[in-house]
């Protein structure tokens, strides 16, 4: 089983294109793609408030909790979508085949049907690409693993400086 991902740039370009298209068509503020463990893969659009990494981590928790909730009420395939309606900003989350999450942040006055219509289409386009994610393990480029693990010791010192 693949427990890690190395994403080739071509795939990321394709993802960026799809997310951009969705942002343009549905007039949304921010679109993100994260993997189901909460790691951010791509972000498009503007983000006035909030940290993308945190949004992705929380969305993953939300999607997993919703999947669990669906299972508990007897759903066989809990990979749907749901949205939170806020006062000014709303969030639409779509669980893509249990492996990825599409996160759409939009102003509440944007019609939800519009977001849903184009988000669904984006998910259809993303499906084959996200499938490739787990098949293609891109080779490292200009990357020296030994140097990497040596460097980590110094970086740990800088990250956790002595008081």
């Amino acid at each position, binding site marked *: 089983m693949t427990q890690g991902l190395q994403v080739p740039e071509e795939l990321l370009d394709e993802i960026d294109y799809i997310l951009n298209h969705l942002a*343009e*068509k*549905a*007039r949304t503020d921010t679109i993100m793609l994260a993997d189901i463990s909460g790691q951010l893969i791509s972000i498009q659009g503007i983000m006035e408030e909030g940290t993308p990494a945190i949004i992705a981590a929380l969305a993953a928790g939300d999607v997993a909790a919703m999947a669990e909730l669906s299972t508990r009420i007897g759903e066989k395939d809990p990979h749907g979508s749901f949205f939170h*309606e806020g006062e000014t900003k709303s969030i639409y989350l779509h669980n893509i085949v249990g492996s990825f999450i599409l996160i759409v942040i*939009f*102003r*509440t*006055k*944007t*019609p*939800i*049907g*519009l977001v*849903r*219509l184009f988000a*669904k*289409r984006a998910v*259809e386009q993303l499906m084959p690409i996200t499938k490739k994610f787990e098949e293609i393990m891109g080779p490292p480029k200009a990357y020296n693993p030994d140097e990497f693990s040596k460097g980590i010791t110094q970086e740990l010192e800088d990250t956790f400086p002595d008081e």
Partner: protein
Amino acid sequence: MIEKKHQAGGDAPLSFVEILLEMNREGGFTRSVLATAEGLPIASAPVNSDSELASAMVTMLQQVAAETRNQLGLPPIDEITIRTEKKHHLICRPIKFDNELMILGVIVPPDHVYRRVTNKAIKRIRWEL
């Protein structure tokens, strides 16, 4: 009471709202709405109308019609019409595109024609997808 939050107004892409506005103008229609198969608003015209309620209603009509068609073994539905005593018409027209189903709902005042104008709008909506 329905909260008027998701009004298909300011933030919808101009294209959908524009298509509906132009259709209303051309046909002399009082109101129109474009909704998803789940009854969620995609766009509406005029901009400040209650698109949530209208979307839910036209979708409900579409679902009843689809079930009726199914039970009676009729060919695919092209239009659902409700005519009031005062000769207003509510027209619902399903729009199929790939796997997607949308519904265009239009309120037509008495003595107005609508087929040609709604056909034209449907073509333009498909073009935008």
